[in-house]
């Protein structure tokens, strides 16, 4: 589906000192700077995979997506998606992909979504019967039948996002690129989108490439995780392997009956996460020391309650960002 080898992308931008003097200076003598967004990136994606691209803001995830969809041209390296070079933008290629961007809208703002869909029907040359069939099917799945005739500007963000998603599925794409599809949505709406995507993937076996800030999205959807840091690939394996990067650690939460000193050096090695009062702490504890340490804490501290769970992927991510040398 996707073969990328040694992919790089550099951008040029200009800089300016503040104030009037800076403005005049940059008017006559402009300083440019080259920024590397993606560097020497390799990726192989098989049909039917769901891949989560992880990374902080500005890591290069969106740049990758734009190269995969043929929107921008790589500076270096080879890239092949669905058997063609994306930026050649062959008609067939464009008919088989879909792009959903949580921050942007392809629906006409001042019209009902149905108008936009009818336009898309013509763009993608979908015959009437197929179109109507998919329209009904998708609007039932997404539960938006009643929203099709409402002006887009009057919809809530969650409703709009569903229609946005629907608009990019009408032509039955083989690959769907989702850039922050749940951004800004409330928890229920986020879950709706996730459930739908999982369901849709189960039924069609479509390939999904997904970026998100919400680890819950990744955790629910992605079977495979690719971590991007400063334009480079730093990790590429299953979700389980990602969760296990820190060595099979467990998250243990303790609640104390009285305030415990948060500077206590005892907790330091376990990346403690305290509440404001100092009556609750979450620790990352390696599996093999769980028994020993648990007993020690129960004995030495005023524990009233505790529970254990697998390390949430959010904490893995947070720790990796703090200490990238763990990779």
């Amino acid at each position: 589906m996707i073969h990328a080898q040694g992919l790089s992308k550099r951008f040029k931008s200009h800089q300016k000192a503040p104030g009037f003097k800076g403005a005049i200076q940059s008017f006559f003598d402009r300083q440019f700077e080259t920024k590397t967004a993606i560097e020497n990136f390799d990726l192989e994606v098989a049909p039917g995979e769901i891949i989560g691209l992880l990374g902080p803001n500005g890591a290069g995830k969106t740049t990758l997506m734009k190269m995969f969809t043929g929107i921008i041209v790589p500076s270096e390296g080879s890239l092949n998606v669905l058997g063609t070079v994306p930026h050649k933008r062959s008609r067939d290629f464009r008919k088989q992909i879909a792009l959903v961007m949580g921050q942007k809208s392809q629906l006409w703002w001042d019209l009902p979504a149905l108008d936009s869909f009818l336009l898309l029907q013509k763009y993608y040359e979908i015959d009437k019967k197929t179109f109507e069939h998919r329209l009904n099917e998708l609007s039932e799945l997404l539960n938006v039948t009643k929203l099709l005739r409402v002006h887009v500007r009057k919809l809530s963000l969650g409703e709009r996002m569903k229609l946005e998603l629907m608009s990019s599925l009408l032509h039955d794409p083989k690959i769907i690129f989702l850039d922050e599809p749940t951004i800004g949505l409330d928890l229920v709406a986020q879950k709706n989108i996730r459930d739908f995507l999982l369901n849709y993937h189960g039924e069609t076996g479509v390939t999904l490439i997904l970026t998100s800030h919400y680890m819950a999205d990744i955790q629910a959807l992605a079977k495979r995780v690719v971590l991007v840091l400063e334009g480079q690939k730093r990790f590429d394996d299953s979700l389980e392997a990602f969760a296990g990067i820190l060595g099979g650690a467990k998250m243990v939460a303790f609640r104390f009956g009285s305030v415990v000193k948060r500077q206590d050096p005892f907790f330091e090695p376990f990346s403690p996460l305290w509440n404001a009062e100092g009556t609750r702490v979450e620790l990352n504890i390696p599996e093999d020391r769980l028994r020993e340490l648990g007993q020690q804490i129960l004995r030495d501290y005023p524990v009233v309650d505790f529970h254990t769970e697998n390390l949430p992927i959010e904490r893995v991510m947070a720790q990796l960002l703090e200490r990238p040398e763990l990779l």
Partner: protein
Amino acid sequence: MGLAAGASALYGGRDLMIKRIKQYGSIYGAFVSTSFSEAMSFRAHFVLLIVMDLVFYGTHLWSIDILYDHIHLIGTWRREHLLFFASVMLAINQLTMTLVSENYWQFPLMIRTGNFDFHLVKPVSSIFLTFFRTIRPGSMFNMAFTAPAVVYFGLQVDLGFWAWIALPFGIVLGFLLQNSLEMLFSCAMFWMIDGTGVNFIRIEFQQLARWPDFVYPSMLRGALTYLVPVLLIGSAPVRFLLAPSDFWPILGLVVFLLFFWALLGFFWRMGLLAYESASS
């Protein structure tokens, strides 16, 4: 065998072409209807757009009329000649306003916000999506002003039978040249952070084209005829209509059109290569 294959490829090609033309036709139909329903939901703006153009048309013709109260000729043209020229330019302007103008303003915004990305992933020509997506239905009504004006002043300059037949084609050719040029300018927006400046060049060139070519001193006239041929937009058809023996400019116009279409394809591709897409 080879012949048969060739023929079938040819017919296949023709079928494909017909299919494409049908597809683009139906897309354009949808553009018209969506633009219409969109425009109707902003009634005040809809009306103001019409009035704005009419105010411009009125003051432009009136200025010329006032001028001729004090003079007899500009170059060799009397009042009715210049008014005929002006009304042809207004008719071209009205077509542009209706069919394309809005898109020139949306294009830099789409580039700056990154919404242009969506055009690029659609299996439809991105030039088509960029320049023909929005029409201004309101401006269509202004034909009720420009068409009678052209006819009225056409009668005053005594157009012959064939000139009347050629008149609509002349206007369409002027319209095509103006917009091919302006689309070509718009390609520069790919390289600019804020492309709205390009729109101001377009408008400046429109200003220059609003007067007949003989008004300008020879150097400037040459540059604006052979280099950036904005003077051909109106002067070529009008000169031909007034005196059919004066056909060289309109021939030049057609040659420039073909040349610009090739150039537009080239610069558009270059632009797409340079397009960086606004970050998220």
